[in-house]
């Protein structure tokens, strides 16, 4: 039985190697060929007509970015370093992003305003939003009160 499992795994691995060898796509560029200095310049459809055009960083992009990150994170890394993600999606957060970057009020960071008060309301309205970041990690501040 164990030998059969090993054989199946080897066959699958060989199949994957074959499929990989037969694939012939160009990798996404490691760095965007044109530097994007400001958020408002990140309107991808200015130059792209294919699926990249959907990445337009308009005001609504914050709503949509999770879907793209779950499908093709390499596309994010063309312009953003990993720390750009961890500013908000930290597994253990020291400072919240809205505290770190007071000089970027145009960015839609979470936890703006008097959030110690507001979190009681947001937590009731849609606790699933809290769960995504604080359900299994980044919860040291939570357990200070919520024991």
């Amino acid at each position, binding site marked *: 039985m164990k030998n059969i499992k090993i054989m199946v795994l080897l066959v699958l691995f060989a199949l*994957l190697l074959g499929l*990989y060898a*037969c*694939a*012939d*796509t*160009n*990798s*996404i560029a*490691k760095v965007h060929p044109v530097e994007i200095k*400001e958020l*408002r*310049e990140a309107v991808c459809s200015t130059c792209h*007509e*294919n*699926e990249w055009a*959907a990445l337009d960083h*308009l*005001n*609504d992009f914050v709503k*949509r970015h999770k*879907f*793209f990150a*779950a*499908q*093709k*994170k*390499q596309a994010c890394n063309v312009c953003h370093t*990993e720390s750009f*993600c*961890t500013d908000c999606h*930290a*597994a*253990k957060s*020291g*400072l919240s992003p809205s*505290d770190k970057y*007071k*000089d970027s*009020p*145009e960015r839609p960071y979470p936890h*703006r*305003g*008097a959030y110690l*008060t507001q979190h009681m*309301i947001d937590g*009731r*309205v*849609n*606790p*699933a939003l809290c*769960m995504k970041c604080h*359900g*299994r*990690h980044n*919860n*040291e501040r*939570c*357990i200070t009160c*919520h024991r």
Partner: protein
Amino acid sequence: MKTNSLLSGTKSSSPPIRMAAFLIAFILLLSSPLASWALTLTGESNTFLGARQLTDKSNIVPVYEYLDFAVDKIGDNRVSFHFGGWGKGDLRDESYGKRYDADIEYAYLSFKNDRNNAIVNLGRLLVFEGVATERIDGIYAKTDLKRGFGLSGYVGSPVESVSTGDSGDIIYGGRASFQVPASLVVGASYLMETKGSSDFRKEAGFDVWLNPLKKAVITGKSSYNAVTDGWMEHAYLLTLGPFGNLRLNSDASWINYKDYFASATTDVFKLTPGILDPSEKVRTLGEEVAYTINENLVASADYKNYSYSLAGAADYYGANLTYSVPEKGGAGLSVHRMNGGTDKLRYDEFRVYGFKKFGKADLTLDFHDVDYDSVISGIKSAYVASLAAGYNVTQKFRMVANMDYSRNPIYDRDIRTFLRLVYRFDTTFGGAKGAK
């Protein structure tokens, strides 16, 4: 005085020393005589010095250092190393129960092939693949296959900041995808986290990006909890436009608490015992209409309806106006109303901000206010006013000082100040031409 070792704040089934050894080995590798290749080092350091008085009258003066960097072209153009982490020390009273704290957010070696989007990452990683939004100590690989198919996989130990002891030991999973360029991306993903011989988490999911018409895009995903045998979440978004200067976003989501919160380790999200009712289900429906008035000015209106199976309904709606001029500044105004079934879910929310650049200097003002219909802890209004002043000393070095003044049901008067020093670095060294 309590002290914490660099990684003591995070829990992984692999000992912290393993990560430290990995980093030391990597640094030794870079500094070895054999490392004669040209390396590029890019990164950013953010140092924060804060001051604040807490409700217990303690005065905290924390210093935070956030450092991230990437080392590229390690022997090969395709190999790089990425690091991000932070450390904190309290110069006066202890804050949040720890005088010293730190975290390595990510630290991994990466191999990116020029063909087939093949990637292999090794170390402490962030994994975003379908149902997975995880941080692991382990390995991640991804590649395109033939005819638009793709495959990714990961395995490691989950990294959690604080554990109540019921997290898993090993996590693994993957995602299979298929795409038709410019029209369709679909993926099926799986995640398994085990603890001992039992399954702690077992999730499967489906994600889609669909461009059926030229000006219509559907994105979304569904997640299934195979431990509780129920759908955790469906979340979908339809984007229409642009039609001239108009864009529309419609979103819908469904969440079942019993399945969604089943794997929580933070007490407040645990269903038994907890403040969340496992029988609760919430459906949200939202609409946003954005109109670009001119290249600098965008107006939008948004509406979201929350419908609970037990707690009733709530509506959140409002409007936004944003103005921006490249290299000069910008401003924003938003007004929203929350109308819910309970007193705490009835409030008005206002925000106004502006920032302007004056040569090397810049100034930011931000005011955020929430007016509750009923009194909460003696007050009806919670607000924060922020003032920040920045100065670009050089192209690589920037200073920002900011002060917040806030009043809310917890603080009668809260003043917080921060000084932030930003240093960006970008260096090439090594190689045949010697160090630069």
